[in-house]
């Protein structure tokens, strides 16, 4: 069983009518892996998640725990849990009743209530819950019945710091027990603390799929420059077709262009004030990669 991927997407394209929302997505998730699915708004993250859950029309192959998922056959998802868009909660039921609706095992449910510190309000009707309470209940529903794969769309939405830490620990514990996770989040710094692999999606296409360690290396291939005349430096880089991204105060360039840049700046009399390898800041890396893709 250990050799079977928890999730495998092969050339998956998702459609709404004739519009293609996701194009040829291919990636895999191994048992115990925590995948961060990141990308700008409208990139197709939620669509991919819905596709995996057999909720969208698609072409290609989605395999969960060795079994294929289709739009009308979800048997492969019997060991899957998910939180998509908003927590799926019935307001007329109490938190406990919402969990009971899906729970196969009472022990599992009790343990999740305690792990997520929901005991004080779990017997109240869910209609009175705050956003954070609903979010925790939604996460608990996704984690019920010892799932082999869990799909979480923006799980930290509305959570306070304490709850965020609790959820993070819970994700790590489940992952250590072999549960695979596919998580999307806009809070990349938070995601960076748990994920083992990054899948970057833009305009419906997967543009990067790397282990976090590899991903961090990318950052060191970039340099952060500050000159005494950034405006002129930008013009020169553009004239010599040097790829760069710019901010008001600094420029980011590729390691391969460093010597050429130093020469050019010297010739033009621009003083190079600072030149440092870029730190492994996921947000910045993502911004850079996306900027590069946009040309």
């Amino acid at each position, binding site marked *: 069983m250990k050799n079977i991927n928890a999730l495998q997407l092969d050339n998956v394209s998702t459609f*709404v009518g004739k519009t293609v929302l996701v194009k040829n997505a291919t990636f895999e998730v191994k048992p115990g892996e925590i995948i961060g699915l990141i990308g700008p708004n409208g990139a197709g993250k939620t669509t991919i998640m*819905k596709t995996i*859950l*057999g*909720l*969208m029309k698609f072409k290609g192959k989605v395999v969960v725990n060795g079994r294929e998922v289709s739009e*009308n*056959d*979800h*048997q492969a*998802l*019997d060991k*899957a849990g*998910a939180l*998509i*868009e*908003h*927590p*799926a*909660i*019935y*307001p*007329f*039921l109490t938190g406990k*009743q919402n969990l*009971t*609706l*899906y729970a196969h095992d009472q022990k599992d449910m009790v343990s999740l209530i305690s792990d997520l510190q929901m005991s004080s309000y779990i017997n109240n009707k869910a209609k009175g819950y705050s956003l954070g309470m609903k979010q925790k209940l939604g996460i608990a*529903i996704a984690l019920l019945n010892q799932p082999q794969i869990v799909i979480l769309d923006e799980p930290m939405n509305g959570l306070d710091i304490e709850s965020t830490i609790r959820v993070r620990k819970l994700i790590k514990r489940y992952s250590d027990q072999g549960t695979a996770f596919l998580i999307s989040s806009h809070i990349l710094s938070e995601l960076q603390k748990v994920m083992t692999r990054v899948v970057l999606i833009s305009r419906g296409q997967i543009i990067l799929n790397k282990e976090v360690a590899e991903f961090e290396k990318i950052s060191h291939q970039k340099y952060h420059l500050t000159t005494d005349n950034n405006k002129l430096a930008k013009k020169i880089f553009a004239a010599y077709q040097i790829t760069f991204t710019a901010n008001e105060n600094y420029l980011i360039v590729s390691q391969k262009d460093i010597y050429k840049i130093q020469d050019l700046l010297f010739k033009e009399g621009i003083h190079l004030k600072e030149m440092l390898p870029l730190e492994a800041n996921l947000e910045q890396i993502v911004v850079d990669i996306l900027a590069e893709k946009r040309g």
Partner: protein
Amino acid sequence: MIYSIKQELYKLVHRKISWIAALILFFLMLITGFALADESKKLILTLTFDSSDFIMFILVIVGATCFSMEFQNNTILTLLYKSSNKVYVYLSKYIVLFIYDVFLHLLALFYTICLRYTLFNYQVNWSELYLYHQPVWLNMLTALLIDLVTTMLIIAIVFLLSCLINSNAVVITASLLVTLMGQSISSDLMNGGKLVGIMKWNPFNMVDLTRQYANYSMYALTTQLNNQELLVGSLVYIFIFVIAGYLIFRRKRF
């Protein structure tokens, strides 16, 4: 499938409206008892204090919210991925509403017996022959069974509309219009002269099944079908509407 049915039952049992509706049914039957004090007691018993119309309204409201609550609470996604096939989600809801329908009809029977012997104390012999040369008790049971078919037809229409229209209010209004105005819409459709032979099989005609059973001479003229034909027509339309509703549900974007 059984798992999906259990889930739907759990939700139905925990919804306040399911129980409040059962109480409302009693009060409406009670009011009917007073309002129809001068009518034939046998007819009142056969129609279980006109419970069929009230059950119809209850089912339209509960049925219409059956799907809309899933869309409003985003629970439809969980329901769909947790069930092995979309058809189970659709059918389990239909089956659970059928169970609730049976429950309401049994409740109507219970209320009728209670009211007959307590508040109204009708001097009617249950074994006295009444409609179709059958005893009153048999008329009452037959009317209840026939009404189960009529109400399931209405639920099938409600489900079909719920999958077509996202607005809960529009679904309830349209379903009530079919229920209340079905007869006049049907009459209009049958005004075509030559086409009456075909148009008498229109679905709006079928919603009069229970009313025709209790008042054959009046309704048979309008529907131009006998009881058996109405029953068969209703069952066929239930099948068609359930299938059509499911096909729309299957194509719906979530």
